[in-house]
């Protein structure tokens, strides 16, 4: 005869396992898979002109955009790497952190520092212009506003594979005036969190096209 307490214990354990599995899935595992490509996604090719807001297009430096979402665990994974990139190459490039909502500005400043320029891309116009549909993503534009690099930072989620620091390699290439480097598919296939939609805004986009 099955003991009632045993049944309760089994049910409890089952629920705990399911819940923990769900949490890990939500927090990490699903990000190990490529981010689903949105149906309306339009790919932007390298050297293709990108429609940028005037505040960016007027700059005479290569532009480095870091698409960041504080709600995305993957964005947190490589924050340290991003800070190092900006710190190392901040003089040669114009670095921006692009957040999907004005609500994220505070978090972004906290993560990357108050001095960094934060762009709020509430309507994902900038993302779409650059062909970005997930975070974290790095976009490097040359001085003419053409897409130089769009893709992941590293093969590893925590940017620990030095040989595949795609974004850093691209930054070094553009600073050195080289042609856009060619990386494998892992560089361009988007991993991470989908860009959030329908997030409540309490302000308009900080920039206009």
């Amino acid at each position, binding site marked *: 005869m099955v003991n009632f307490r*045993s049944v309760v*214990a089994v049910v409890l354990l089952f629920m*705990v396992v399911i819940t*923990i599995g769900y*949490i890990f899935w939500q*927090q990490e595992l699903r990000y190990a898979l490529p981010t689903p490509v949105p149906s309306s996604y339009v790919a932007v090719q390298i050297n293709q002109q990108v429609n940028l807001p005037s505040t960016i297009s007027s700059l005479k430096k290569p532009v480095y955009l870091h698409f960041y979402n504080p709600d995305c665990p993957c964005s947190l*994974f490589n924050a340290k790497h991003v800070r190092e990139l900006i710190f190392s190459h901040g003089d040669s490039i114009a670095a921006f952190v692009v957040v999907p909502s004005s609500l994220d500005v505070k978090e972004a400043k906290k993560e990357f520092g108050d001095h960094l320029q934060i762009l709020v891309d509430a309507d994902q116009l900038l993302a779409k212009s650059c062909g970005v549909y997930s975070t974290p993503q790095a976009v490097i534009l040359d001085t003419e506003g053409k897409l130089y690099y769009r893709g992941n930072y590293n093969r590893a989620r*925590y940017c620990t594979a030095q040989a595949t620091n795609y974004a850093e390699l691209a930054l070094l290439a553009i600073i050195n005036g080289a042609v856009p480097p060619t990386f494998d598919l892992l560089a361009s296939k988007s991993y991470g969190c989908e860009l959030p939609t329908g997030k409540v805004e309490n302000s308009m986009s900080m920039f206009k096209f």
Partner: protein
Amino acid sequence: MNQPQVLQSNKKEIFKEITANADRFITNSLLAYFVLGIGLSFFYGTYLVGIAVGGLCLVAFFGTRMLLPNSDLYQYVLGGVLAIFTAQFIYQMHGLFEMHFFVFVSSTILIAYQNWKLQLPLILLVVVHHALFAFLQYSGNTGIYFTQLAYMDLLTFMIHGGLAAVIVGVCGWWSFQFEKRTINEYMNSKKLEVQLSSVSKNIVFAEEISKGNLDYKNDSVDQSDELGNALLKMQQSIAISTKREQEEKFVTMGINKISEILRGNSSNVKVLSEELIKGLVKYMKLNQGGIFLLEGDSADQHLELTACYAFERKKFLEKRIELGEGLIGQCFLERDIIYLKDVPKHYVRITSGLGDAPPSCVLIAPIQTQDEIVGVLELASLYEINENTIEFVKKICQSIASSIVSTKITERVQKLLSESQQQGEELRAQEEEVRQNMEELSATQEVMVRKENELQERMVEMKVNEEDMQKVEKKYRQLTIDHQNLLKTLADNKENPVEKLTELYT
């Protein structure tokens, strides 16, 4: 008791204290893990995972323990919980490789329960996790699945897994060793308890033996208890020697007692027989007895009930038994003991004022010396007569026979002596009569002599008297003459008679 039996029956009891200690240790460890998870959340903001996953792990462990406190399930859950905590820490530290060491820490913690099987859930989850990632990585998938390493090659993975297996294996081995040691300690403790108990019982046993209680049973003695067995053997030896001593004492005392009776009643066979049967029945604690002695001359030899003890009236009346008649007569002829254990119901009955019962056994023994048989002894008892008593009867019958022969001779001698004395008495009486006659004769003679003397004296006296008579007569005559003269004078002197008388007699 071998180990599997121990495990099945007493494992809960053996590991009760260890499990209680382990529970306390594990409770503290899990709380520390939970706090650590929250602490790690500050590094990369993994608060949700830190609190939710850590909290669920605690719920899983403590919930299972609370629901099934008597089951080991919560301990197995612990193995899984520690694996999940490790995965949580790895995640929280963004794959920091050192977080993998928590597998080793967890594996070590699990030793607390001294159950190597608890390592299985831990290693199972680790293996499933790594196998999944290895499958993904080495099956052509281009992704990076092993945390902070750029790429974990197969050799590194093998070393990684091998070390984990070694650590978990060592911890499992230690758990097994501790478990085995605990069981051995328990068994040794139990063995010691049994030994102490045996020693205590053996002390009591020895004390009882020293007090002479040889019937004391020490049921706890088993084959492994050498002291107990030695004491048991000693008790048995003492019991045997004591029994032998008692038997010898019984025989010796019995012989002494019977000898006293024999010595004290050596003049009369009847009295001797009565005293003997009384003494024998009482001494041997039997219930009935009788002595049949050979009587009659050679032409009419028969056995006669000389004395009995508590015999039935009917049997008592049957005093005469012919040689060869019944068991008594047969025993006399065979000159051997007859011992009946299965006595027929109406053979004989032992009676008292309250009731009666057939005896349990009847012993019929010939009263004989080496050369001569003088009678038969019959004894009956409500209880079985032991061998020693039978041997005693055999021995004592020889003494009784000798004594009876001797008594009969004595009796005969006494009878002759008595007759002789009687004859002597008669002679003495006749002699006395003669003597008395002689004395009477002598007295008669003396009387005759005395009478003769008296007669002579009387003759003399008569002669004297005759002479006196003659003198008196003469004097009388003189007096008569005087008187006549006087009368004459008086007649002559009538004027003055007094003066004349005074003149005459002056």
